[in-house]
C-alpha cells in the first residue's frame, strides 16, 4: 500500500471527525505516515461534516483529499455531494438510510445499516461512528485490527470502552452478514 485516501461524510454531530482521528491514530500505530483533516460549517450540530484521512508509506505534503479511494456516507446529502470524488475502483460504504443509490458501475457499493445498528443493537446512536470504523476495517483492511482497537480505546470517553468494543465488532459483523448487499462491481 503506497497511499490510501479516505473521506468520511455525513452530518455534524455524527462523530465523523472523531472517527477520522481514530483511523489516523490506528495508521500511526501501524507505523505509517498520516494526515487527518476535516471541514465543517460554523454550526455545531447538523450541516455537512466530513473528515479526511491520508495514510501513506511516504511523506505527505498536500494534506487535503481530492479524489478518495474509500468513501463513507451516512446521509443522502453527503453521498450526493461526494460521490464524484470517489476514484474508479473505489469503495463506497453507505448507510442503509441512503435510499437513492448512486448510478456508478465503476465502484463497489456496500449498503449497510450502520445508524440502525447503533440505535437498535447497541442502544446508543452516538456509537454509529465506531460501527462505521468496524465496517471500514472489515472491508478494506486499511489499518490493522489491533491498531484500530487500540486507537478506539484510547480516544473514547472512560467508562464507554465495552460499549465501543461491541460497536466495533457489530461493525465487523455488518460486512460479514451483508456480503450480498454489494451493488456494483469493479470494472
Amino acid at each position, binding site marked *: 500500500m503506497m497511499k490510501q485516501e479516505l473521506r468520511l461524510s455525513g452530518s455534524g454531530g455524527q462523530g465523523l471527525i472523531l472517527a477520522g482521528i481514530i483511523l489516523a491514530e490506528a495508521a500511526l500505530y501501524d507505523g505509517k505516515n498520516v494526515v487527518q483533516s476535516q471541514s465543517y460549517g460554523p454550526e455545531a450540530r447538523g450541516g455537512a461534516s466530513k473528515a479526511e484521512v491520508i495514510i501513506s508509506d511516504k511523506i505527505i505534503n*498536500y494534506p487535503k483529499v*481530492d479524489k478518495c479511494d474509500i468513501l463513507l456516507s451516512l446521509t443522502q446529502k453527503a453521498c450526493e455531494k461526494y460521490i464524484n470524488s470517489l476514484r474508479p475502483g473505489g469503495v463506497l460504504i453507505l448507510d442503509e438510510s441512503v435510499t437513492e443509490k448512486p448510478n456508478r458501475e465503476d465502484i463497489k457499493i456496500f449498503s449497510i445499516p450502520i445508524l440502525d445498528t447503533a440505535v437498535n443493537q447497541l442502544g446508543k446512536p452516538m456509537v454509529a461512528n465506531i460501527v462505521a470504523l468496524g465496517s471500514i476495517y472489515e472491508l478494506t483492511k486499511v489499518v490493522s485490527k489491533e491498531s484500530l482497537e487500540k486507537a478506539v480505546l484510547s480516544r473514547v470517553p472512560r467508562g464507554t470502552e465495552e460499549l465501543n468494543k461491541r460497536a466495533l465488532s457489530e461493525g465487523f459483523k455488518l460486512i460479514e452478514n451483508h456480503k450480498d448487499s454489494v451493488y456494483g462491481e469493479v470494472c
Partner: protein
Amino acid sequence: MPEKTVKLMQGNEACVEGAIAAGMMFYAGYPITPSTEIAELSAAKLPRIGGKFIQMEDEIASISAIIGASLTGKKSMTATSGPGFSLKQEGIGYAIISEVPCVIVNVQRGGPSTGLPTSPAQGDIMQARWGTHGEHSIITLYPSTVREIYDTTIRAFNLAEKYRTPVILLMDEVIGHMREKIEIPEENQMEIYNRKKPASNPEDYVPYKVKEDNIVPEMANFGEGYRFHVTGLIHSETGFPTNNNKIAAELITRLVNKIEDNADDIVEYEEYKLEDANEIIITYGATARSAKSAIDLLREEGRKIGMFRPITIWPVAQKQIENLAKIVNRVSVIEMNLGQYFLEIDRIAGKYTKVDKYGRVDGELITPEEIISFIKGRRG
C-alpha cells in the same frame, strides 16, 4: 538517542506544547475559531504546571493581560484569528514601544471582518507587518507542518525574549486544525532563551538603557523591588515620557534596528530542490505543502523547479531572495490572497528576474494541480 514520543497531534495542540516547552506560564485570550483549541489546551495544561490561564472579556483585554504578565517575568501568549488580530493591534504597538516580550498567535481565517470562520486564508500577511500604527519593525514566523509549529512556537518565545518585542506566529487553519504524525523528544532539545535581568541594584537601574554589547535593555521583573515606568509614549532611558525630538528619533531607530540589523539571526527558511533550479516558487505555510507536491510532479516531467519557503516572513529574507533572483529565470509567488507577499518579493526580485503571482481567496487550500497548471500556463 533521546527518548521520543510519536503522537498524532493537531497543529493548535503542537503550538501549546511548544509554548509550554519554551516556558509559557501565562495565557490570556478570547477564544475564536480556528484558534480555539490553543485556548482550550492552555486552560487544561497551565494550571497543572503552576501557570495561569484567564479567559478575558475581549481581545484588547487579552493582549493587555499578557503584556502585564510578561512585565512580572512570566512568559506569555495569546491566540486569536483575524477579527481578534485586528483588535489586538493596539496592544501590539504598546508591546513594541515598551519592549515587552510576548507571543501573539493568529490562526488565520477568511476576512475581512468575521469573513469565513472555518475556512483557510492567508490574508493577514501585511497586517502582521503593518497592522499597528507608527514606524516599527516586527518579527513574524510562519510554520508549515505540525512539527514545525512546535519548533516555531519555541522560537517565537526565544526571539521575543532575546529582542524584547512581540513576536507574531501566523498559522493556517489547514495546519492548525489538521492532525499529523509528530515526534517530540521527551526532553526538549531546543535552546531556551530567557530575557537578561539587570545586574545592577534597584536604585541604580535605568530601565531603558542599553548597555554596551547588549541588543536591548536589561529587563527587571515587576514585584522584585525594581520600580520603573512603562508607557506607550516616547520615553527616555528612564522610562518617563518625553517630547525631545532627538530622543524620539533615537528610540524609534533603535526599536527598528534591533530587528532589521539582526535579520541574519532572525530569518529562517527552507530550500526545496533548489540545487539546479532555474525557476522557483516562493510560498509559505500550508500552500508550501501543495507547492512541494506540485514541484515533485513537475520534476518528473523534467522541469528544473524548486521552492524557497520563508519560515520567518518578517523581517523578509532579503539577501537570500536577492541571490536567488539573480540566478533563476522566474519567481512565482503563490499564496491564499491576491498578492500580498508578492509585493515584497517583487520589490526584491523584480529588478533581476520575472516575478508573477497566483492567488486564491475562496476559502479553499490551493491544490498542487492548480499550481502545476499555473506554472505550465504562464506566458511571456
